[in-house]
């Protein structure tokens, strides 16, 4: 296997808040990497650095073995990196299909190919088992899960080589979530796309990932193949951290 993405010693602060101190991470070709960690651990910040939205304070990124500086999101996207953001990055005022192709519109110059986009959008949503009355409605009017499905579809159906998915299943129903995991697995099976996926549902993580990384205190503190770890180990890891940090008696229930 070849390494498509590697981060070395990445650090990032926001004013007084240090989000990342020393991140070292690698992503192999065709691999699905699960990234877990507490709320506020810095997972989203890491993703936003890897996709060119934030610039790291220090450290470097290697893309296919070569050092790369992502000047902007478009730049990184041009290099084959696409992202589902936790905040979804949807434009409420635009229709479902325009959101789904935002930044990668189908164009028959000089006009947008609305018909093509509308058709594709419908098809993608069907494939994801998402039921939306019409792809013409503004996303402001959609339910939480429908909105997330659009954001996910935007990236998953792009021809990106590296997908960064920040909690893509948070608002998805059981059925829709399962279908998206199927999709990710399909991508993996084809072996062309490498994925980093953030999720808090460890069962889902183990189900779809090849490897799991835990982000704690601004560093990757745990890195194991999915087959070598278990739901209990992951849960314990987090609980242990929590027990050590706090002395309050309530035992966290196994998720």
């Amino acid at each position: 296997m070849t390494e498509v993405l590697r981060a070395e010693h990445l650090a990032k602060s926001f004013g007084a808040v240090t989000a990342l101190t020393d991140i070292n991470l690698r992503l192999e070709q065709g691999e699905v990497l699960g990234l877990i960690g507490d709320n506020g651990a810095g997972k989203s910040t890491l993703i936003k650095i890897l996709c060119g939205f934030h610039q790291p304070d220090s450290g470097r990124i290697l893309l296919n073995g070569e050092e790369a500086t992502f000047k902007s999101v478009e730049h990184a996207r041009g290099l084959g990196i696409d992202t589902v953001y936790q905040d979804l990055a949807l434009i409420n005022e635009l229709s479902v299909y325009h959101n789904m192709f935002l930044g990668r519109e189908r164009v028959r110059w000089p006009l947008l190919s609305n018909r093509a986009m509308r058709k594709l959008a419908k098809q993608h949503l069907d494939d994801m088992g998402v039921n939306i009355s019409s792809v013409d409605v503004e996303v402001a009017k959609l339910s939480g899960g429908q909105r997330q499905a659009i954001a996910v579809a935007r990236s998953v159906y792009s021809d990106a080589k590296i997908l960064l998915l920040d909690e893509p299943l948070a608002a998805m129903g059981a059925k829709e979530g399962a279908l998206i995991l199927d999709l990710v697995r399909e991508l993996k099976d084809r072996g062309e796309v490498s994925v980093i996926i953030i999720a808090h549902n460890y069962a889902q993580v183990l189900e779809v990932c090849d490897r799991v990384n835990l982000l704690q205190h601004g560093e990757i503190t745990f890195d194991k193949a999915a087959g070598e770890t278990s739901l209990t180990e992951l849960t314990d890891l987090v609980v242990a951290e929590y027990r050590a940090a706090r002395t309050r008696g309530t035992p966290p229930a196994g998720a």
Partner: protein
Amino acid sequence: MDGAVGRTEAEKTPPKGTAPGAPRALGRAADAFLRRREATILVVAIALLVYFQWSRSAFLSHDNLVNISQGTAPYAIVAVGEVLLLVSGEIDLSAGMIFTLSPFLMHYFIDYYGMYPIIAIVVALLAGAAIGLVNGAVTVLLKVPSFVTTLGTLFLVQGITLTTSHAYPAEIPPAAQGLAGWFGHADWSELIWCLAIVAFFHIVLIRTRWGLHTVAVGGNLLGASEAGIKVARIKIGNFMVTGGLAAFAGILEAFRTSTIDPSSGGTGAMFTAVSAAVIGGTALAGGSGTVIGALLGALVLAELQNGFNLIGISANPFNIILGAAILVSMILNVHLARLRRAGRS
């Protein structure tokens, strides 16, 4: 939340319960019309027309239609630029001053630098766009809010106009007289330019990537940049378009009125243009607006101005009636829009 730019609503599938027996095609056309965001303001414009024609039969005379078209066109042209800017979340207060300056520039270029008139016009438009570029660059790159940036350029450009013209009107250069008919002097020439510009930018806003990105930037700036949209380019571009359009409107008005006057345009023209945009359904907060709506907004304002003048209202009470008419017609407009939405079930 009645967002977007008419895009989504205009294209919905027709409702289930169309009156049976009614002529289908017509019903569907009426329906498609009513789905457009601009429909209600068009209804208001037509209602005003009916009212004024009823109260003063000269309203629809040829000459008066020319008057109305001339009272609409230049502001509608500036409003087109302001719509693009407002949709992308910015505003240009200096547009009216660019409007004032540009015919003077044309005059200087022709009379002092001996340029060919048509080239002088093009260069004056480019100068307008260049002022827009400055507005955009200061706003986007130096991160000064556009209200403040363009407040600065408003004064700056006005000062340049006054200083270079010695605050005195100039005549249309004789060399350019041949172009007068094309650029605003002929009866319908302003209207034709205006309609062409509105149609073009309507398509740009509704059907092109540029328009889509303009809405995206104004609707959710963070989201748009996360999605990899070139926010700076879109905003600066829209400032440039506004500058160029304002310059063009100024030149049209100079030819129409056969004079280049330091008091034409100004903040009044900018204010009228922004008002037309907002009346036409563009949100000050960004993310939503229509170019055709702005044209209709400018038309409504011109109708009110012209109609009450025709009826013979004098200056002092004029504003009472104008203000009341704006309030009444805009309440009507909003009410119609609500009916329109409620009817679509």
